[in-house]
């Protein structure tokens, strides 16, 4: 019996077969086994930006920011993501390494930094957090099947299809 927890997660856009197919077209000499799914935690925040000058969009606009729940790395999120609630096996979920307060601080810091760098404004607008969620994004583990040293393993983001070697 594995214990499960009810958490927010995202819909899988790339299933096992698709991932396998794409990778095998890219590297024709290798067969892949794609069985394991791990869930990676992110804190998601939606910030409401206060409108400070004429240059900013009316009403101030919103910015989405996701902070990696393990390494505290921020990234801007283009659209408001849709989450679904699901029971996930606890053994496949990577635990977060810090709490909401820290995550919030990291997110605000990151959005501010992005504004300062991209827009060349010294004092970015004030922001308030309008939505905060913890969600788990599914990642596939794709194992190459050749013999070492040609063998390698990738992790594939099941939502965007992006991958990175492990």
């Amino acid at each position, binding site marked *: 019996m594995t214990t499960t927890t009810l958490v927010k997660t995202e819909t899988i856009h790339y299933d096992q077969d698709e991932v396998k197919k794409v*990778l095998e077209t*890219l*590297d024709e*000499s*290798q067969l892949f086994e794609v069985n*394991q799914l*791990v869930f*990676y935690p992110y804190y998601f925040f939606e910030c409401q*930006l206060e409108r400070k*000058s*004429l*240059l*900013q*969009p009316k009403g*101030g*606009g*919103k*910015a*989405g920011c996701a902070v*990696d729940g*393990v*390494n505290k*790395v921020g*990234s*801007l999120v*283009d*659209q408001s993501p849709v989450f679904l609630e699901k029971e996930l096996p606890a053994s496949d979920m*990577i635990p977060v390494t810090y709490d909401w307060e820290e995550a919030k601080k990291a997110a605000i*810091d990151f*959005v*501010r*930094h*992005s*504004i*300062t*760098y*991209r*827009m*060349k*404004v*010294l*004092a970015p607008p004030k922001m308030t957090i309008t939505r905060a969620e913890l969600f788990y994004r599914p*990642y596939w*583990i794709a194992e*190459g099947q050749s013999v*070492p*040293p*040609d*063998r*390698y*393993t*990738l*992790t594939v*983001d099941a939502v*965007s299809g*992006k*991958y*990175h*070697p*492990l």
Partner: protein
Amino acid sequence: MNQDAIIFIIYLLILLTIGLYFSRKASKSADSYLLGDRNVGPAVTAFTMQSTSMSGFMFMGGPAMAFQQGWYAIWYAIGDAGGGIVNLSVLGKRMRRMSEILQALSPIEYLEKRYESPAVRIVGGIISIIFLFAYVFAQFIASGKALESLTGLPFSWALIIGVSVIIAYTVVGGYLAVVWTDFFQAIVMLLGVGGILIMGLIHVGGLSGLNAALADIDPTYLSIWGQGLEFYGQWGVVLGAVLIYSIGYMGLPHVVVRHMSIRSTKSVKSAILWTSIYNQLFAYSPYLVGFIGIIMLPTLGDPEMVIPTLAYTFFPGLFAAILLSAIMAAIMSTSDSILMQAGTILSRDVYHRFINKKAGHGQLVLVSRLCILLAGTIGVIVAINEPPSVFTLVVFAFGTLGNSFLVPYVCSVYWKNANKIGVLSAMIAGGASHILWTALDWQSATAIHPFLGGLIVSIAAMILGNFFGSPPSDEIQEAFYKARGTHKLPKNIDKNVARDLAPEASSIADFTGYNRHPVKG
């Protein structure tokens, strides 16, 4: 207030309107507001890059050098014409990957993380702040000169007004610096300088007529060794003059930071092509205008006024005023970027990191603003009492930054075992030798340009100092291999790896127990 001053104000208002119009149009959502110019085509991007580098140096310093030295000055133009391409090709992708892996946000933080030493950050931070400000002082002086010829006010008043405008503009928010205003600016300036060049060439009988007339005045203007063959046979001087702007860009924190924020290579490739074309057309023009100045303005007192003076000679007052306004606005935009960068380095990399770790965001903004204000005040005082020439000051500041940071940045992605002691020695020895070489005029004694001298010392210090440091940690060595792109992965797979997933991948590997080295497993 005279007519030209009014034109200048109207010009600034037009820029503001363009900036407002396009940013509002572009900012339907907060995302496009944040992500800015992602949707601008490569030609516009390249043009914009052009206009941000067209600063006081290009319109005042370059022509002045040409006016004094003749064709020797073209060595600087040659370096400048290739600098952007060299910079992108050498550091471009590797540095982007490395800063992603290290998760560094500022160019100085990047050095600290790569070389695993807070001392690198503090030394780097201090050097970059001082010399970025020196670089901005040159822009201040140029702004004083531009306003002097626009308004007819005495230099000291023009300088105070110019610097106040720049500081106010930076502290309020740099709203003119939107891609489309930069684009508009670039067109006005290129048409302006191109116009002066064409009118001038017609006047003196084309390039051949120009050279013939120069030879009549003094045949050594046509030599590559400087007027009066000042640097005859001194290849060390010529090489330094070419290198400073061709490879020196790789040592400028405010330029290198661009590699760290490149999002996609797709628009970059066309931008490289466009830049290399524009540069060949325009990097040389201000210098050629300087040559025309030798013939047409034999009595000119201040060589840096070649372009403003010729503008009023060839064009009706209105057009000349518009061109000068554009130059002034370009100076504002360049100063703004540099001041911002220096202010951010001071508040984030020095104040927040070492002086007050608990400083809130508001306090950091205040620190950068005070620092910019202080720089403005010092700049005005120095410039009024003893204004150095724009050319000298830019070459000095640019050279010191280049000599301090070029070796550290290049080694960070090309030399696996480069360590903190090596880098600290390279930064300090490189910067210090450039300062001494310039201040004590070692160029005349050694026949070697200060930039080349500093570069050699910096490389030597890097190699020597490296013996005394411990090699980088395993994580950094691994990051180095990754940034180089030498995985044991098939090429097709490797090309498409999403580098931004690096932190996730490393945590997933820890979690699942997959070893990161396929060979060992």
